[in-house]
């Protein structure tokens, strides 16, 4: 409320050691074990690769979305964290590393890449104008290029504003965020459909993109919260950042935890109710051979537990509780992606029931390594606060 222009004292500081200390070993172990996994069991490895890709896209592309969301909504409270989100968006640039092995192994993963199958299957044949290798690659490249373009525009404008303090930049950002929202909505739907839904090419669910988006938002927010908390305790951020700001982060994670359940249940209930074989066959493998326990656990892990962790007002502000909830939400998203992808591995490989072993772990290690190292690369020697943003003073004064 008190708008007496305060002088913001911000001094640049080295990033916390943890990013490289944990990031590099994880990345190295990840790369080596992933290469081994591809030698050892290419099919299982490529399915896990999809999980890793979906998780990294959530973290990176979700962060670009958070930046755009702030611009388009004219949000104030989140200004001090926008630079962190912008750097986090940089992680999206790692996605080709994960997508290229998938594209080389498409034949192992996607039934619709088998010409003989498609020609003898009227449904796949009708879908082939969309589901074919060339268009698939074109879509992935298109989404990547567009999102990267926006990311760099946001980053450039934002760093420029650090010195110019120009109100105009804020306006331009809001303006370009409107088309971004359209591209983002289409882009994330395409990624969800291409990489996750087309694993079962006969199946369709119009809500699938939103389902993935709900998890994406919560995950991007959770990673943002974790980075914020660690930067804050290392002294990289301003001292004015306090529990009021954390509350909003916790609130958004809480909201999208509930939103995910809403979407997941809407999808499930409609299919359960109509009970027609074209749709139910996607859920059936998830209800047998041990998957039924994982399906029930999904409700617990991705909804009930984080919901309980964040329900209380205080727990949305308490840094250690937030840290726990953030880690939990990221883990739950990985679990959710595993639940989306792996039943198709069962089908394609002729195995039964959920599998878990070093191959799964190696891809999780790789994703974690990528997230830490790419954040480090993006944020090294940069300002962590958009010190030139005209809204910053108001943002620091934020009360819930």
């Amino acid at each position, binding site marked *: *409320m*008190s708008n007496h222009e305060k002088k913001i004292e911000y001094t640049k500081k080295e990033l916390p050691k943890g990013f490289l200390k944990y990031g590099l070993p994880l990345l190295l172990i990840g790369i080596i074990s992933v290469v081994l996994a591809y030698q050892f069991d290419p099919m299982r490895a490529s399915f896990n690769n999809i999980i890793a890709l979906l998780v990294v896209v959530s973290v990176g592309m979700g962060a670009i979305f958070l930046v755009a969301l702030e611009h388009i909504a004219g949000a104030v409270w989140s200004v001090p964290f926008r630079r962190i989100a912008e750097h986090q968006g940089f992680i999206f640039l790692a996605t080709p590393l994960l997508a290229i092995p998938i594209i080389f192994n498409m034949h192992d993963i996607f039934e619709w890449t088998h010409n003989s199958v498609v020609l003898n299957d009227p449904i796949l044949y009708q879908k082939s104008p969309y589901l074919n290798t060339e268009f698939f690659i074109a879509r992935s490249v298109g989404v990547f290029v567009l999102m990267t373009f926006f990311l760099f525009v946001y980053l450039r404008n934002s760093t420029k504003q650090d010195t110019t303090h120009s109100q105009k930049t804020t306006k331009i950002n809001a303006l370009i965020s409107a088309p971004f929202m359209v591209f983002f909505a289409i882009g994330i739907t395409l990624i969800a459909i291409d990489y996750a839904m087309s694993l079962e090419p006969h199946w369709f669910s119009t809500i699938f993109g939103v389902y993935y988006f709900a998890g994406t938002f919560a995950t991007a927010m959770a990673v943002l919260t974790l980075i914020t908390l660690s930067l804050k305790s290392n002294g990289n951020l301003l001292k004015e950042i306090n529990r009021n700001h954390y509350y909003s982060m916790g609130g958004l994670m809480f909201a999208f935890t509930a939103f995910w359940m809403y979407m997941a*249940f809407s999808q499930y209930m409609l299919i359960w*109710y109509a009970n027609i074989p074209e749709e139910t066959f996607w859920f059936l493998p998830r209800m047998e051979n041990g998957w039924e326990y994982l399906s029930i656990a999904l409700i617990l892990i991705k909804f009930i537990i984080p919901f309980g962790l964040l329900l209380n*007002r205080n727990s949305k502000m308490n840094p250690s509780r937030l840290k726990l909830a953030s880690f939990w939400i990221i883990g739950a998203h990985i679990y959710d992606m595993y639940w989306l992808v792996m039943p198709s591995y069962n089908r394609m490989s002729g195995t039964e029931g959920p599998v878990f072993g070093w191959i799964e772990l190696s891809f999780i290690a790789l994703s974690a390594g990528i997230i830490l190292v790419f954040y480090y690369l993006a944020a090294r020697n940069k300002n962590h606060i958009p010190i030139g943003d005209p809204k910053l003073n108001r943002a620091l004064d934020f*009360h819930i």
Partner: protein
Amino acid sequence: MSKLYSVAALFNTPDDIMHAAAKVADAGYEKYDVNTPYPVHGMDGAMKLKSSKMGYYTIAIGLTCMSLMLFFMYWVYNIDYPQVIGGKPLFPLPAFVPIMFEITVLTGAVLTVAVMLIFYFKFPNNAHPLHDSGYMKAVSSDKFGINIEAEDSNFDLDKVKAFLSSLGAYKVDEIYFDEEEANTKHKILDTKFVFGMFLIAGFTSLSVYLHMNKVLYMPPFDWMLVQHKVTSQDKSDFFNNGISSREPVKGTVARGFMPYLFTDDPEGAAENLVNPYVADEENIALGKRKYLTYCSPCHGDLGKGDSRLKGQFPNGPTVHSDKVKSWTDGHIYHVISEGQNVMPGYKKTVTRKERWAIVNYVRTLQRALDAKEEDMQ
């Protein structure tokens, strides 16, 4: 008799009121409140309020009502009127989830407000000393106020007035209230209140009645109802008997059915009909399944006439009588198709092949319960 309720001070800006609230809290006052025209962010921090417990009540209320609703639906679907709907299980949990969700939200919100009305406003009482004061007028339009109650243990009229002025209040008032008025105990059965309730109930009922019985039958709401075609159960002005559904033309044969030639003629059936199916394992298995479904409730699982209906219906007689044994297959087939006296016919529900299979099964039963020497080998 008028009595001092509080000292109320008015401020011009939200910044002033934040500052004043913090100072009042620091000075150790406990019975005071802040009134603002809109929520001022950070006020609970400035007033050093502990976080409200209301949320716990809300979730407790919501979860309780949710459980009650779940139990109610369970009672309806499983105890009071068990009925399979849409091929779903008797306790279709996913179908209940949206209702449970809505009930939790609705009761949580509505009952929280109701609880607050009762506990904080002492409903049905509604008198508050601040009502009708210039102070309340000001804070409900564009001013920000703070008032310290006389009941506070630190209260001292002159000190409080000086203190509030020193915080920058542009106006400090003493608020008095009429003890008699404030202590009037309104009762739930107050005539005015009851009358008001009746009025509301009457108005609601009337408008619901008019909606459901009149408005819904006016265009455009009746567009789904009024259709330019004959629907089932319609009255007909066209046909003489006034019924718009027509009987099939005499001699019509439905697809997949064979006309039965021996209605009312058991002897004809017995003489002329020959069982076209061989009693092999598959055929008897089919007959057994159909017999257990359609016949066993009256005739018993083994056809001994020991019905499960226990006399609630004329018990089906045994099919092991010499009479039935001496019948030809065609005769039994006839009884299954057309019924016999009170026994209903099954030609509409059981296909021809299944009826013959039942005949074979009845024969099997007859032979099994009265096995001859050579059957044992």
